[in-house]
């Protein structure tokens, strides 16, 4: 296997971890009931927000760096065949993925700022919305990456 293949696998694994962390935090923000029933969802929403925020930032930055390293291989070995196969929609959703990933990267400092206050306080509109925007970006990018890799992988 080539280095790019290993990096793509690592990219996918970091993506899974990031997906888990941001979904965990988003569900926790959306479901802030204090009644503890011991159900799976109640346990799922119990997160340490400071730890999760740091983990999401570290994973997101790692993920974008990995994506940026792999990107030239995609441009040369995957996008050109997509163009030859007239798969304009596949090129389009990849472009959407890259632009959203970039915008998500720019959100991270403010995301950290929204969690710098008291995490136990009621979620502000910015805190909730920014977390949900990040969650949407991470989910979309993960699914798009998976679909495109199914059409044509890098190796």
């Amino acid at each position, binding site marked *: 296997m080539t280095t790019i293949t290993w990096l793509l696998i690592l990219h996918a694994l970091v993506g899974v971890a990031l997906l888990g962390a941001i979904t965990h935090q988003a569900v926790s923000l959306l479901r802030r009931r204090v009644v503890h029933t011991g159900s799976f969802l109640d346990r799922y929403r119990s997160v340490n927000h400071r730890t999760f925020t740091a983990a999401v930032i570290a994973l997101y930055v790692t993920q974008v760096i990995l994506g940026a390293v792999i*990107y030239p291989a995609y441009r040369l070995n995957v996008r050109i065949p997509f163009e030859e196969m007239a798969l304009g929609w596949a090129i389009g959703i990849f472009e959407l993925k890259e632009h959203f990933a970039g915008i998500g990267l720019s959100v991270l400092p403010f995301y950290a700022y929204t969690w710098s206050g008291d995490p136990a306080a009621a979620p502000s509109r910015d805190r909730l919305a920014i977390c949900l925007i990040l969650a949407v970006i991470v989910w979309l990018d993960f699914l798009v990456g998976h679909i495109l890799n199914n059409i044509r992988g890098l190796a």
Partner: protein
Amino acid sequence: MKRPWFASGPFLIVFSCAYSVAFAMNWPLFIYYPLHGNFFWGARMRTGLGPAMVWYGLMASAALAALVAAVLIPESVVQRVLKGYLWVFPLGAMLVCLYLLRHLLFA
């Protein structure tokens, strides 16, 4: 108290706006040609170098503008005017990207 040198609110606003404009107007700071690993400043496309990549350059353009804003504009100014509505900017930038890619996505 000394204010932090970096303000995340202004960074978010200016990055979102600058990225949308840079993408719409095709203003990358540089273009990368991965076939031979060439970098060129500006948005002018070169021929004979293989496929071009503008994403790194678009990110650099927007980040540069946003960094200047983050250093010059205090967080308190943005929070006083736009508290609770800063999320509109990245969402707007995402919608601009979706609109600009409509010819590929909905062809």
